[in-house]
């Protein structure tokens, strides 16, 4: 790897490895009075946090590098892993740097975790961000605007400065840029996945959880520029697959590396969906809060935690496969993940109707053994290549 790319990847890796949120500490210490607001996956309007002059920090559990000492005492064995590692992070004071915490409505686990937070940390700002599941402007839109107004007021109070329309428009523009850079990265990976392996793309995305959006955008653009300059990266006889199910509890990096080593180019995924939730640029003119509401109603990413009647998710997945010129789908969901696992039969039915091959397995954020996954993914990849040659 050339030094310029190595520097970018190493920086992202360092941020990824840092469970103590040193980057957030550094950002706060750079200027007195700065505050940071944590949020769980998937979607929160980070523009509001940014417009208050605060740093949005994505919290995605502890991965496979955190020893769970106290977290397991709070959750039964049949509950997914992310809440126990998130509680562990908090009880071990790694999240003390956060001045507040937002819990979006992903599922009942994260919802109830918001209540646990309220009980365990009564002195901190906690809010459950209940996004509308009705996408009609008069019903869901009006409701969502009220919710955003409350959040705007709360965050302004916490930051000790009201969030002005001007500041919010600026933040929207900055996040539009960030989403645009992420989209470019996804398009580049889809075209030439050998230059942009998902194990690296994932690190680049993860950096967006702790960096200010302006810095993250710069990092992404630098990566987009440098990665294709690598001479030893070339197309190989690998299968092109879309990964589904990783939108909340994230896989260990080793799992993504395993998929690549097993012969899969990942050309589509739902990793860190919150960073790219809004699929179109939010207008920067006019009423900024109204624009955020409208963008949520009209341009939200399709995912398991959204109500999507009439087989909408299945159609979207088939379209995603075709748009990315993928050859198969790997369902890779965390154990006990209700949203991902409940919808799997519907998605599988849609793929079967479209004649798209698929395979499935489960993981936990601290999965450490990949031999079985490698074998399964390798067999899947081989079978796709054999079929396509036939």
């Amino acid at each position: 790897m050339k030094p310029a790319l190595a520097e970018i990847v190493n920086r992202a890796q360092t941020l990824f490895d840092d469970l103590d949120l040193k980057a957030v500490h550094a950002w706060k210490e750079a200027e007195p009075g700065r505050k940071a607001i944590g949020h769980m996956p998937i979607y929160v309007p980070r523009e509001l946090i940014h417009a208050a002059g605060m740093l949005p920090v994505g919290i995605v559990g502890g991965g496979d590098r955190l020893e769970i000492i106290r977290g397991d005492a709070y959750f039964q064995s049949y509950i997914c892993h992310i809440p126990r590692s998130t509680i562990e992070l908090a009880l071990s004071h790694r999240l003390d740097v956060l001045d507040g915490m937002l819990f979006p409505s992903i599922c009942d686990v994260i919802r109830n975790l918001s209540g646990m937070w309220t009980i365990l940390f009564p002195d901190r700002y906690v809010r459950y961000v209940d996004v509308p599941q009705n996408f009609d402007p008069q019903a869901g839109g009006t409701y969502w605007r009220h919710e955003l107004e409350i959040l705007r007021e709360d965050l302004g109070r916490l930051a000790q400065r009201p969030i002005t329309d001007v500041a919010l428009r600026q933040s929207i523009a900055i996040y539009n840029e960030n989403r645009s850079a992420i989209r470019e990265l996804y398009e580049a990976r889809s075209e030439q996945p050998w230059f942009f392996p998902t194990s690296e793309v994932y690190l680049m995305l993860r950096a967006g959880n702790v960096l200010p959006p302006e810095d993250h955008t710069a990092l992404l653009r630098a990566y987009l520029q440098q990665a294709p300059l690598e001479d030893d990266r070339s197309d190989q006889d690998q299968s092109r697959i879309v990964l589904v199910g990783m939108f909340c509890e994230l896989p260990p990096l080793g799992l993504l590396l395993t998929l690549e080593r097993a012969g899969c180019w990942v050309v589509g995924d739902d990793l860190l969906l919150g960073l790219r939730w809004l699929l179109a640029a939010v207008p920067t003119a006019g009423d900024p809060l109204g624009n955020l509401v409208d963008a949520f109603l009209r341009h939200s990413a399709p995912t398991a935690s959204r109500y999507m009647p009439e087989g909408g998710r299945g159609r979207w997945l088939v379209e995603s496969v075709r748009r990315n010129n993928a050859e198969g789908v790997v369902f890779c969901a965390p154990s006990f993940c209700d949203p991902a696992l409940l919808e799997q039969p519907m998605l599988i039915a849609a793929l079967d109707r479209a004649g798209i091959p698929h395979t499935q397995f489960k993981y936990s954020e601290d999965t450490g053994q990949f031999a079985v996954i490698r074998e399964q993914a390798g067999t899947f990849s081989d079978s796709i290549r054999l079929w396509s040659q036939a």
Partner: protein
Amino acid sequence: MNTSLSKKQTAPEDAQKEPSMLLQKQMIGSHYDALARAHEEGRKVVYTFVPGNLTELIRSFDMLPVLPEINALQSGMRKLSADYIAEAEKHGHSEDVCTYVKCDIGMLKKGNVGPTGKKLPPPDLLLLSYTGCFTFMKWFELLRQEYDCPVAMLHVPYQADGQIHDHHRDYILQQLRTEVIPKFEQVTGRRYDEDRLREMLRLSAQAEDDLVWVLESARNVPSPIDAYFGGVYYIGPMFSAFRGTPEGLEYYRTLRREVEARVRAGLGPITPEGQLGKERYRLVMEGPPNWTSFREFWKMFHEEGAVVVASSYTKVGGLYDRGFRHDPSRPLESLADYCSGCYTNLGLPTRVELLEHYIRHFRADGFMINSVKSCNSFSVGQLLMLRQLEERTGVPGGFIESDLVDPRYFSAANIKNRIESYLQMLEQKRAAKAQA
């Protein structure tokens, strides 16, 4: 332990039933009969959920409700759920997810024969009341793939801080007016009749008064009711198809008279094995019961003289005991408030406060959590709730794990062992207190 107490109880071969139980059985049977004939008779059928159900509104359009959770629990009690779950898993449903969903899907795949042996009609409408449970959303997305019928979606915002905010109520009202009622009108060809709805809500409120009286009767010592194992029968008509009906009203009058008679006689609850002898432990229960071994589960408590004096499960279909009543003077608003206030739609701090209130109000000796694998809405946070309640009340808590309708997760020996150990601990604490 405590075999002498068990011997004092009468032990008929068949479960002993109170008159209200027989009446309820008859009502449920009639309802399933009506469902079986519904399409022949030109009546429309709505599938919907217990929390946040709009029974009066559905019935005001002369439609009949089908509640998949009720079907699932009935299948569990009739030992049918294991096969249904296996069928769903055969069709690719994960072993990790809610067994109510899998029981329902499995029942559908095996012909949709209801718990009473009669085929259920397919829905004319799926009314997705997304109240307090994320799984509901995916459940009806799955059912929509099986049935060619419209879906009306009602999103009820979560009460994270335990309060109904005006914009939450407005959101629900807007959905009732622009999504739910128009779909009811479209499916039935009838106009919304608010006067009819008001009349039904008036009946509901009267029945709710009687239900609350029955639940409050557990303050007596001995308690004349078991507010969990018996309680699930008491809430049956209210939480399912009979709110707002004369039959529902009659059921709660009968039930109240029955309980009044037991209070006068100083008697405890009737269990399936007969009249409970001495009340030895008063407990508060959190979490749903196990249905596949319901009678065995109850027996583990009543044979030790343990009576549940209040439970959270009996509030999943509404917190009437905290003052809510359906209100004919504000029909849709009160339906909105009803949906918002269902137990699993309340934030964890509110749930802890409610259980703390129950422990004090009903003078409980202890509380127990039955944590079910299937239900994250209930289960996530229960271990913290346990600690909180012990700290706040000084009353010791117990913790057991099972499932709703998957018999693979009901380990009778383990559960019995835990319950006995817990009650022994209560006994020792009581003895120590008496000596002090």
